[in-house]
């Protein structure tokens, strides 16, 4: 192999690696965004009411989400409309609600 070809191969592999590392499907951001909403953005904080081990939250008011294991649609409906004691989270944008719904439904019940 000529040195030029070798150089091209290295650049190609490096570019491929960069693409894979920063590809959307390898981006931890969607779950992390949801986690941040759970812990610091929602008002009141999800973490105050709901136990969710992945977030390190021990809730004192609402159902334990690790036990409930709600699917994404269920979380979205509850956060959007409220239910029982839980208020409707009108200050969260639709994108934020999607993010926290994805997060909760993905991690609930997973960590022991």
């Amino acid at each position, binding site marked *: 192999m000529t040195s030029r070809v070798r150089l091209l191969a290295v650049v190609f592999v490096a570019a491929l690696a960069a693409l894979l590392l920063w590809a959307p499907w390898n981006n931890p951001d969607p779950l992390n965004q949801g986690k941040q909403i759970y812990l610091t953005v929602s008002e*009141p904080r999800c973490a*105050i*009411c709901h136990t969710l081990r992945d977030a390190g939250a021990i*809730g004192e*008011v609402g*159902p*334990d989400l690790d036990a409930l294991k709600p699917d994404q649609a269920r979380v979205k409906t509850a956060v959007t*409309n409220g*239910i029982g*004691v839980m208020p409707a989270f009108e200050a969260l944008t639709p994108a934020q609600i999607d993010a926290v719904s994805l997060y909760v439904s993905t991690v609930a019940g997973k960590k022991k």
Partner: protein
Amino acid sequence: MIDEKWLSDKAPVCSNRRGFLQGVAAVTAGGALGVSIPLQGADIVAGASAQEAATPLPEYVKWKNPDAMIVHSDQTLETRRAYTGSVITPEEQLYVRNNIKAPDDSFIADRDGWKLEITGVKSPTVLSVAELKTMGLTTVAMVLQCSGNGRAYFQEKLKGTDKAIKGTSWALGAAGCVAWTGVPLKTVIEAVGGASPGAKFITGTGGEKIPAGLNPKDIIVERSVPISNLDTVLLAWELNGKPISLAHGGPLRMIVPGYAGVNNVKYVAKLSLTDTETDAKIQKTRYRVHDMGTEGSADVPSVWAMDVKSWVTSPLSDGKAGRVTVAGVAFGGMNAVQEVEISTDGGKNWHKADFVGPDLGRFAWRQFALSTELEPGSYTLVSRATDATGKTQPEEPELNAGGYSHNGWLAPGVKISLA
């Protein structure tokens, strides 16, 4: 709603006072065939999903009978229909509905030491459970029922439409009949000088600690009921003869006989005679009866007195033709239940059922039973109760946005096949 092909075209032979087995040949034939009929007709309305069936009991109710409970969440556990037929519901089978998480065991560490603040009286004071126990004693048997019991039937009715009712999908099992022991509130109020002038409501506040970062009014379990209930309200420390468990509101619970579950404030820490209803969210906007598409407010009725209601508890699954005893429970809420009728053809033909078992007073439920001869076929078992004021269960109650107070006779029908 009822699938017409399941309605039997055979009129049942009603039990008369001599009613005895007929159609022995039919029974023998059925038995000889040894046919195994797949289960149908059990209460399968939304609520008893596979996941709920598999969910283990939460820690604080680990002592309950796992076979008897449907775990909707760690705060909402429903009694399976087959377990709702006892004259008194054993605690191991009793449903649980908590609006906020149950407190920890520290609440019942010193039961007699639990303090109740009493205000809105001539001499406001704080009394311990030990002191309350010196003041008087009563025991009341009553139906404890979540206002949302039957919501699943409302939700079922809305399937396929663009409307929905949110909330736990209770079918029939958010109800039990239990005996509370405690002191009449009236006795306590008299002992502290009587009500303040202008007092119109009895307001009870639960002793749960509200976490920081939340608006207390949104979370606090504080309910007001009309002061006319002073004749019947008790402060209870015992359920079915045992100190009340944490799950059911120990060490002290405000009991309002005839009123929906939410008004029976658990671990009551404050008891006030007030001139207005509390403005806590759970009273002001929640637990109100209002039309679909509207919001709860102080302008619409609060979920207070319960209505006449009944349901069949046996049989709930397919079986042998011949002698069948259709049984269930019936109650009138604030008034005694007077009569129960049963139909095995989904409401076409009605027959009067007998009350069986003891009469435990107007707030308790009664068991009813009707023995009858049923030929092989498909049946839809329904019951319809009438209370002492002449009020009868409707076929279908009016929809309301919260899905409260369902007491229709049609929806809880049990479809079975006999062979």
